[in-house]
């Protein structure tokens, strides 16, 4: 009795096709240009500010990486599966002996790989720009490129992967546009969990407090992935922060993919 190919063979094949498709997509390069412009703004800022140029460039650079990675994760997560349905390319794929969950996992892997390429390219551009415009040149910048900086970069990639998983989940039962909007909302709320939590705790209305806490707890806390302040002010990282953040990201991605793989079974093929 034939049971069809295993999870990793299917996911590998789908991821490869998805990754290549994204590399040919203009949106990837658009986001890269946006991030480079943001870095240019940081350079302009070094001319107008009394803050140390290295700190400003690191601060702006990490913000650029974070925002562009998040936008790309939201866009790719929302569109990658829906595009298969809209363009009907999924028809022949699903007539093969594979599960819809396997296919979905492959789409997610392809997106995460593409986010990795974006992250690598932006990291390279950031290092070049920061090195060129730091007062002490590359020597001064490399003095700041320690483990904390590496961790900050790595966690931003994880953040974009988590957002892609959330967007993919929403896209199993809504359009690309709706999924992208809702995930962007998740990004805004998830990036301000501490502030929203403190607002909620100070609120006198129990209903408002309950709603705020529910919203805060229903979205991933993206502050786990944001080390910008700590890195730009050279603050020490709490021990175990990176592994905990990684586990937190894996838990969110896993939960979203499991739920999405159930929902995608009910999605009608075109």
């Amino acid at each position, binding site marked *: *009795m*034939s*049971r*069809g*190919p295993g999870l990793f*063979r*299917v996911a*590998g*094949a*789908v991821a*490869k*096709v998805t990754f*290549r*498709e994204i590399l*040919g997509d203009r949106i990837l390069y658009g986001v890269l240009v946006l991030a480079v412009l943001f870095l240019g703004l940081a350079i302009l800022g070094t001319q107008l500010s009394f803050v140390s140029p290295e700190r400003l460039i690191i601060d702006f650079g990490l913000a650029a990486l974070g925002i562009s990675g998040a936008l790309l994760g939201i866009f790719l997560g929302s569109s990658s599966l829906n595009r298969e349905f809209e*363009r*009907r*390319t999924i*028809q*022949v*794929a*699903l*007539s*093969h*002996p*594979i*599960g819809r969950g396997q296919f979905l996992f492959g789409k997610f892997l392809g997106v995460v790989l593409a986010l990795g390429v974006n992250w690598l390219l932006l990291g390279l551009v950031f290092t070049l720009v920061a090195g060129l415009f730091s007062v002490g040149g590359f020597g001064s910048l490399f003095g700041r490129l320690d483990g904390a900086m590496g961790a900050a970069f790595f966690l931003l990639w994880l953040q974009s992967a988590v957002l892609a998983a959330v967007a993919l989940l929403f896209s199993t039962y809504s359009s690309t546009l709706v999924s992208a909007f809702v995930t962007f909302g998740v990004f805004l709320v998830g990036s301000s969990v501490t502030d929203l939590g403190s607002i909620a705790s100070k609120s006198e209305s129990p209903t408002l407090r309950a709603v705020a806490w529910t919203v805060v707890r229903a979205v991933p806390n993206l502050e786990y992935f944001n080390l910008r302040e700590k890195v730009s002010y050279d603050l020490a990282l709490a021990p175990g922060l990176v592994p905990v953040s990684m586990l937190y990201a894996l838990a969110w991605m896993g939960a979203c993919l499991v739920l999405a793989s159930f929902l995608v079974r009910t999605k*009608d*093929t075109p």
Partner: protein
Amino acid sequence: MAARLEIKEVHQSFATGFWLRPAHILRGVSLEVPEGSVYGFLGANGAGKTTLIHLITGLRKPKSGSLTLDGVEVRSREARSRLGYLPERPYFHEHLTGEGLLQYFGALSNLSGKKLETRITEVLDQVNLRDARRVRLRNFSKGMLQRLGLAQAVLHEPDFLVLDEPMSGLDPLGRKEIRELILRQAELGKTVFFSTHVISDVETLCDRVGLISKGQMVRTGKVAELLSERSGGTEVWLEGSAAPSGADTWTGVDSVRVNPDGVRVLAREGTDLGALVSELRSQGAKLRAVLPVRPSLEDYFGSIGRKEDRS
């Protein structure tokens, strides 16, 4: 002959409009496709052909009824591993090359390594696309895409092929190529189920046929049996350019038509031909030929379709 595909009492409907009213697309469809046959699934546009094909390929779930391939539910992976599918329009990833697409679908059929590479070369040869192996699909013509679609459908050597309008939109040469490819699969002992609204394709390729109209199976059976249900009568050809006077009112005569190459007298089924010929001769007509009229599948389904429309 054992039935490879069995469809029993399948109903399918979709919610439409603001009030989500159900639109019934299939209403109790039942049919059997015997092993090794080429089954032509005929129907007008909107009759429910593609919906049934989506159910057979496991892309959708029926509201009720059952579909089995070799006794196994069609949505199971086991059934899908035995099936090759070519959709009406082959929507493929345009950034891939012909070879890349086959590697992708090969992996989804659990093929890999040397075996996959060998099969890719074989099927590209079969569909005459060897030279397009490394060409991106965005540069393929419609005919090339259709042939590549057929190549991916047979890549994993399935026993059962489902082809949705495989010749739609192709030029005569492209149609001929696809027809030959289907016949080759039949020679290899594969069971082929294909939908079309072109009756001549069915006459050329199929040994069995089913007609669907408004979501219901109207007729199924062997092509020869269906045609023997009806007789087209007999045509008597006379020389000259003038019809015997009053011949069109004679008993058993359906019509009399004067053609540039002679006069055609069409006699109904069961007419006493001997008496008719004697009568014609007595009128001075010179007999040239007496031929049985073979009804075409088009005539057959045309009459069925008209009956259905009236009901």
